[in-house]
């Protein structure tokens, strides 16, 4: 069957073990204020204007339909690199689980060929969808952003009930999970949120590790590049001392933490 992706990134070094190919699925159920891939939100391919002023006339399509066969052919091109480095394929987005049937088709092909699979998810999809792919995913990268529900609604526009619930179920079902926390200045990196996150994750000793993802301006650059109708936040970046003190809050509870994905 066909799915909609908006990018294929080879030689991805920060989306799981080894050298990977990361597939960016289009469409996301969340609307994070600081979205890293703002062009990925809508589920259909969309046309954006690239550049400024005169150049702005140039349009570019974000997203394209592709069959699972064709996509798998593309994945296999780097098989030698996966084998040598202990790498594989990462499904990211957007939210790959939104296209769960398409995702399942490709996951099956990957497992038939012994490729390591990683799904990078925001968790905000029905449990059924997790259940359908669970057996074919070697590693989940699971985003936890805000523990306070009101704040979650405020900054991400949905409740975090489902996200928290799915994480608990997923870990219970025996899946290998790394939790990723995007550190957004003044929003997710606050003492309150970090403490609440530590408390929440403490109940899951089975987690492989926590990845703290310092904010970067990649998303803002894209807003400008693609003339997206979004506000630029102008957020500042965390310094090393702040990062280390956040890290310490997790490690002091015995959790394995890494800065950067």
């Amino acid at each position, binding site marked *: 069957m066909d799915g909609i992706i908006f990018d*294929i*990134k*080879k*030689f991805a*070094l*920060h989306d799981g073990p*080894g*050298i990977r190919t990361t597939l960016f699925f289009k469409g996301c159920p969340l609307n994070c204020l600081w979205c890293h891939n703002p062009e990925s939100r809508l589920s259909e391919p969309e046309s954006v204007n690239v550049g400024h002023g005169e150049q702005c006339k140039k349009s570019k399509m974000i997203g394209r339909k592709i069959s699972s066969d064709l996509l798998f052919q593309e994945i296999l*091109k*780097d098989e*030698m*690199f996966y*084998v*040598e*480095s*202990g*790498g594989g394929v990462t499904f990211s987005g957007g939210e790959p689980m939104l296209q769960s049937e398409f995702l399942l088709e490709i996951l099956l092909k990957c497992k038939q060929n012994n490729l390591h699979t990683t799904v990078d998810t925001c968790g905000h999809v029905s449990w059924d969808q997790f259940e359908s792919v669970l057996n074919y995913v070697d590693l989940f990268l699971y985003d936890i952003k805000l523990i306070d529900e009101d704040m979650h609604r405020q900054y991400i526009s949905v409740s975090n009930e489902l996200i928290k619930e799915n994480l608990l179920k997923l870990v219970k079902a025996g899946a290998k999970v790394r939790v990723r926390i995007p550190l957004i200045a003044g929003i997710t990196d606050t003492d309150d949120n970090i403490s609440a996150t530590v408390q929440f994750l403490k109940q899951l000793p089975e987690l492989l590790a926590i990845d703290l993802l310092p904010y970067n301006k990649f998303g803002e650059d894209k807003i400008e590049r693609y003339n997206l109708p979004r506000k630029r936040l102008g957020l500042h970046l965390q310094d090393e001392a702040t990062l280390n003190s956040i890290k310490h809050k997790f490690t002091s509870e015995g959790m394995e933490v890494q800065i*950067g994905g």
Partner: protein
Amino acid sequence: MLSKRIEKLRNQSLTATPKISLERARLLTEFYRSGKADKVSIPVGRALAFTYLLEHKEICINDGELIVGERGEVPKATSTYPEICTHTDKDFEILHNREKVWFKSSDKDRKEQIESIAPYWTGKSLRDRIFAELDQSWKDAYEAGVFTEFQEQRAPGHTVLDDKIYQKGLVYFKRDIDISLAQLDFFNDPLALDKREELIAMKITIDALINYAERYADKLKVLAEEEQDSQRKKELEQMESICRKVPANAPETVWEALQYYWFVHIGVVTELNTWDSFNPGRLDQHLNPFYKNDLNVGRFDESFIREILQSFWVKFNNQPAPPKVGVTARESATYTDFCLINLGGVTSSGEDASNEMTYILMDIIEEMRILQPSSMVQISKKNPDRMVRRALDVIKTGFGQPSLFNTDAIIQEMIRQGKSVEDARCGGASGCVETGAFGKESYILTGYFNLPKVLEITLHNGTDPQTGKLIGIKTGESEKLNTFEKLYDAFEKQLNHFIDIKIKGNLIIERMWAKYLPAPFLSVLVDDCISNGTDYNNGGARYNSSYVQGVGMGSLTDSFASLKKHVYDNQSISLAEFIRVLKNNFNESEDFKDELVNNTPKYGNDDDYADDISRMIFESFFNAVDGRPNTKGGHFRINLLPTTCHVYFGSVIGALPDGRLAGKPLSEGISPVQGADRHGPTAVLKSASKLDHVRTGGTLLNQKFIPAIFEDETSVSKIISLIRTYFRMDGHHIQFNVIDADTLRDAQKNPENYTDLIVRVAGYSDYFNDLGVELQNEIIQRTEQSV
């Protein structure tokens, strides 16, 4: 931390003015004018000339140095070789005034050159003889920039030493020569007389070099007597005794081994201006036994051994490549003489060869941070990751060294060419990326070959559109080339035509070197010249290969892919119309150019549409060249490397169908066209590995990374996997430029702040400031693999 004296020697080397030294030319002319050479055979004449040079050359001992011997009177005084190519006054003027890579000469020098040296050699120099011998079709193609020719102004060199000098002194080589002389069969061997003369010449050169070392010993003795500092005095005394011992006798310490090699090096580069890269080769293999012994018997401590090595390193940097003339100066404007120290790899029995010295030498490379010698690490599947990691550590400091080579591919390449497994394992790569059996092979680069130029000529039915001259064959007007197959067939015919011209020229040139300018000293060093009684330039070596180096693989592939897609598959433009667009250099065809650049399959993206074409081109080039006999009992082979010739070759071609504008540089080595690779390094490596490296004698692949990628351990491990995977796919070589574009732009604007910035250009490293603006821009433009 470098010691004070090494810092001083390094500075002396970095700041010395490259200048022309007429000493060699003067002595050589004196000798030949004396008439002594007229009474003997040519090889013996050459050997006597060599003797005369070494008897009268200035002795140069720099303050504090531990290894002695210079080619010129002082560091960076660079000899000329008038018997090969005689510089004209105009050449001297150009070399003196050039903005980059200049060689200064005084009015006195110029006067001497015009009045005394040039008149003797003009018409007699090998270059003059060669040009008198070559026919018009060769000259037309040469002038059009279809190919270059190395041997018109530099000797057929390209050989690297093996371990033989560390086993025995030169006096023992004389015994071998005596055995060969005794075995000459004047009853049955029609060449016995030639062999006798050659062998006698070899013996003369050995005495000459031993005598040269004695002259150094004498001078060191005087200096030692005068020296006030007791420690230096002791050193000078030790150096004196070393120079009395080597090269006549076998070395027993690291110090003696390096001094022995260095005298040999001076001998080789004094005899002829061998292009290029003469060097000790597998230095970690050669030195490790001496190093261990030095430590075991407590002769020297490790820090002193490191100082000796550092002093040795400076010697290479003191010697710029001989000043070139004409087209060769244009296509290879560099001071580097392509010495490439090999580390790592496997032993003759095929085991991991890395040892303590491998790591010490990597320290030396990192600490010295100088242009010459260049260095590389051979990586076999048997070498540990630790070695690769250390190499990446040095690479990440950003001066382009060492480059990385695939030992397992190199061995396969040599075995395909018929070399023994042991000889292959003891070999490596030299120059830029050229495969060779060290100490046993004469592997000559004959010249670069401009692959895209052949397409341009094909599109104009044999005519060079830059001059309007018919220099190819008539393979059909554009209307006739109505299928891709017909177009490709026409290209292949033109390719074969020009390769024929090139090879015909080389067969003539090879004979002229063999006849007029034998190299008896170099012949002593390369197996099996002594047992064959035959000169290195005449097929005396165990293996003899002549290479044609293809340039512009990426540009040509992309050009064919454009033509295939737009003219033949989509039929959106006729070939005739396309040719008109090219003639107008895409003027008023901006949208079409945009389509060609951004929306047409390109080599370097793991896209078979383009990569299948690169394979076709490879096959055509391979079939045109490989296996044709040279005049030395060996064969012509191909390799794919450009040095800096892709800039010159680009300057003689109009717009190309891949969207490249007229005069712009071509792609280099087997790297994709600058900026055409859009899917990251794995895709580039996949595309590159679709070429059959094993059937070449070397390919060159450049990858530029920003330093950030080497910062964390996990990423470094992934880079190691990247390299290992490329090598599993038989990739021959990869080099990393670790620098960010902003730094380079700043260096372009403020060169004075970046005098020591070295970047890897294409198979070698060079000072960024010495590069032309175009090449600087190209390096900046090369796709950054941002992660």
